[in-house]
């Protein structure tokens, strides 16, 4: 499909600007101006609307169909939460207002949303306090690791290492490294959970903390989690919980009660805000009491009269991790979702998420290899190793699912499972949808035996087939440049 720049017609216009209504000339000396305007497309409003509407038809979202992308919790995003985020009292509120003399009282509704959301998350996760600032999951991880660094610096510890299991998301080691720590990997047992003996072998006084996803990326709850936490605490290390999989635990098990000191949650996963095709998300971070001094500034506080204020005077704080108070419009959506869910709704979410995952597990067992055969939490991980032996790799299974109207599961992750297919159905999907997906998966497994060549050509129903990624990386074409100033 042509790019929007290819469709440009010189002289065509969409938006008409207001005129300045004043006599002034642009008060800028000519040497500071550009010679020609940037080569943006010249189109009518209808041209632009048609272009992007056509692009939207080449996309697949949760509203399009089943999206069992493991570790991503692609649940339904309730429309009411979209609506409230666009209320003018939220959308047109300038973030600098509360920093002006007399401004704080003009943003009490917004501060209440932030304060209440942080309080609810603290209750759900068993933490003392939350910051709503981090702007994505990985940003929450980085914030958490910065808090770990600040805690040890404050105590005069010389800590250099963060421990991470081999099943972790790539963001965990990346976050630890860019915050200045060395990363040591701890292997998993054949049961798919952290090997406690291996942990003991690498544990020493240099360990600043352990980053663990709970339940882990195989969808498994580690029954020895408390023992692991005690080990880390024995060297005054901190336990970091990657909350990507919190959907499995809502209302049933709290990271704080398990022994975690820090947790980030992904509002765009667990709390039903849309993923936006790659953000914006939000990754609030909660901490236990001994770490609250290190949270980013500002901190939202409540006065005795019930009004809210922003505390910038936090000498031990790690500082600003966001320009203001977080991705506010995302937090508004998540808060509205939590209001509708309520306390009892949380258990319903985790219960049905885990029920749906175990149902898919039970139905597909026997058709695909199952690396760890035990009850899972919100997601199950199969291996397409058996099919790969017939020339049908996990990637081909994924593409065959596309032709059958489904978004594929996460493939090739976690790294410790060969040909991994990581399936997270979420609680919002019906049995009929799961059955249709299971049928498609079983049909694909059968075809892998009888006619594998039918699968390796997939997808055939999409606007483009499998794209040449090697070419894309070898000769990067990442921008169409104009002819003018470009």
């Amino acid at each position, binding site marked *: 499909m042509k790019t929007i*720049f290819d469709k440009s017609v010189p002289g065509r216009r*969409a*938006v008409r600007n*207001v005129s300045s209504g*004043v006599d002034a000339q642009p*008060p*800028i000396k000519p040497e500071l101006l550009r010679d020609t305007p*940037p080569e*943006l497309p010249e189109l009518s409003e209808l041209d*632009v*609307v048609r272009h992007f509407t056509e*692009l*939207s038809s080449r996309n*697949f*979202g949760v509203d*399009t169909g089943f999206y069992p*992308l493991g570790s991503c919790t*692609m649940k339904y995003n309730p429309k009411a939460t979209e609506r*409230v985020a666009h*209320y003018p009292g939220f959308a047109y509120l300038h973030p600098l207002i509360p920093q*002006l*003399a*007399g*401004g704080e009282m*003009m943003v009490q509704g*917004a501060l*209440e949303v932030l304060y209440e959301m942080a309080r609810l998350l603290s*209750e759900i996760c068993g933490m003392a306090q939350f910051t709503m600032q981090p*702007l*994505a999951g990985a940003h929450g991880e980085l914030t958490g690791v910065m808090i770990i*660094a600040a805690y040890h610096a404050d105590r005069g510890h010389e800590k250099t290492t963060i421990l991470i299991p081999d099943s972790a998301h790539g963001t965990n080691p990346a976050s630890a490294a*860019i*915050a200045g720590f060395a990363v040591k990997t701890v292997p998993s047992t054949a049961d798919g959970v952290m090997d406690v003996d291996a942990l003991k072998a690498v544990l020493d006084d240099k360990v600043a903390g352990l980053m663990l996803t709970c339940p882990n990326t195989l969808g498994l709850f580690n029954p020895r989690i408390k023992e692991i936490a005690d080990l880390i605490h024995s060297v005054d290390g901190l336990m970091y919980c990657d909350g990507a999989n919190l959907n499995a635990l809502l209302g*049933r098990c709290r990271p704080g009660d398990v022994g975690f000191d820090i947790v980030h949650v992904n509002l765009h996963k667990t709390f039903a805000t*849309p993923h*936006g*095709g790659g953000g*914006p998300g939000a990754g609030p971070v909660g901490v236990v009491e001994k770490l609250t001094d290190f949270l980013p500034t500002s901190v939202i506080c409540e006065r005795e009269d019930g009004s809210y204020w922003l505390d910038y005077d936090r000498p031990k704080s790690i500082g*600003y991790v966001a*320009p*203001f108070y*977080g991705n*506010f*419009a995302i937090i508004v959506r998540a808060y*509205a979702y939590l209001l509708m869910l309520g306390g009892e*709704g949380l258990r319903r979410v985790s219960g049905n998420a885990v*029920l*749906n995952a175990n*149902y898919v597990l039970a139905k597909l067992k026997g058709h695909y290899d199952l690396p760890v055969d035990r009850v899972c939490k919100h997601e199950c991980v199969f291996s397409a190793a058996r099919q790969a032996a017939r020339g049908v790799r996990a990637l081909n299974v*994924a593409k065959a699912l596309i032709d059958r109207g489904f978004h594929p599961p996460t493939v090739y992750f976690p790294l410790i499972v060969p040909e991994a297919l990581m399936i997270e159905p979420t609680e*919002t999907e019906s*049995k009929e949808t799961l059955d249709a997906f299971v049928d498609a998966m079983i049909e694909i497994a059968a075809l892998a035996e009888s006619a594998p060549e039918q699968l390796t050509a997939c*997808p055939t129903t999409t606007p*483009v087939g499998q794209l040449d990624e090697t070419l*894309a990386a070898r000769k990067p074409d*990442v*921008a169409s*440049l*104009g002819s003018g100033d*470009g």
Partner: protein
Amino acid sequence: MPFIANTEAQQREMLAAIGVESIEELFADIPPELLCCGLDIPPGLTEQEARTKMAALAGRNTTGQIGFLGGGFYDHFIPAALEAIVTRSEFYTAYTPYQPEISQGTLQAIYEFQSAICRLVDMEVANASIYDGGTAVYEAIMMALRITRRNQVIIDDSVSPIHRKMVRSYTGNLGIDLEETASRGGLPDRDALAAQISDATAAVIVQNPNFFGCIDDVSDLAEMVHARGGLLIVSCYPIAMGLLKPPGQMGADIVVGEGQSLGMPVSFGGPYLGFMATRKKHIRKMPGRIAGRTVDARGREGFVLTLQAREQHIRREKATSNICTNQGLCALTAVVYLSLLGKQGLRELARVCAEKADYARERLLQVPGVTMRFPKRWYFNEFVLNLPMAADKVIRALFTRNIAAGFPLGRYWPEMSNCLLVALTEKRTKEDIDYLAHALEVIL
């Protein structure tokens, strides 16, 4: 049940298929002492109740002021066609485009966003977005450290103080030699910078227009830092690019900025949009997602996420950044906005902002006791006034007249407690400006 499809009968069928009696049994792997029994969270509301409550909370915020607040976050007009496009759920309910065949909408939009950013700032390559402008400055610094393998960074203090604070936080544990230079007369101090730049300097960071609203040609700074083997990072305001000489034509190596003004409401702090562009030779050192154009086996053009060998899911602790989820929908918003404005429209809009600012400056300088803090400079849409009393007092008084007068610089520069940063966009009318001037005359 809200947001749950399966009936109790279906749940029982499913439990039977699994071979367990109850949902609770599926949680038997969690040691009982770790299970929690009940949270202190009120029962769920209906949609109607929740929307009423949220409307009440939104109503407790005052958004009706005549606003002259900017500081890097601007209240521009948003066309209805933009909202119609970006609220299409095919876009907003999709994940990061890991499966390109069913994500061509997102991927092509990112490619077009990258192209639009390159054209705005006159660079060759751009990424798919970073959380916000401040994080983009930090990521640019980290990128410069990787490219130059040096450890010193010099940041001019006319760069947004919010962004500078973020950089300090991000790099606190990294042992980077991060130095700030004091600007002089509203612009980076050339003499101070010349003295400070050394063979250890990885990058100099400036902003244009800077936090005081002053416009500069930083070509000489580019030469100065290049002569010592370092890089120039320029943070810029994308609307200004409709009119001003772009950083790419001044020798910048990495261009970043806050893209909120490209069609996003100010939304009490986010979501916003960090952007980053650079020269082609640095593309493999750039952080973040990048969409690239390629072909399928039948020669049909399409788009993929490319150069992923830089990224955390492949390189883990050796990745260029930890960024994963970024600001995809905001990047879409920006490219739709720029497409609706178009080549002539953006220039016109930039001119309108500059003209209104010029009128505002002239009108406000007629108020007795008000002077320009940096009278010799050129401005785009924002400028600093000296007031005859503390800016905080003026702001408080003008709030009562329904005016958000601007940002008090004393918050970050204690010696500038009488200084007010005033911003204009196309949404402020001549009458608004006259009203502000009149109110100032009454107060001062």
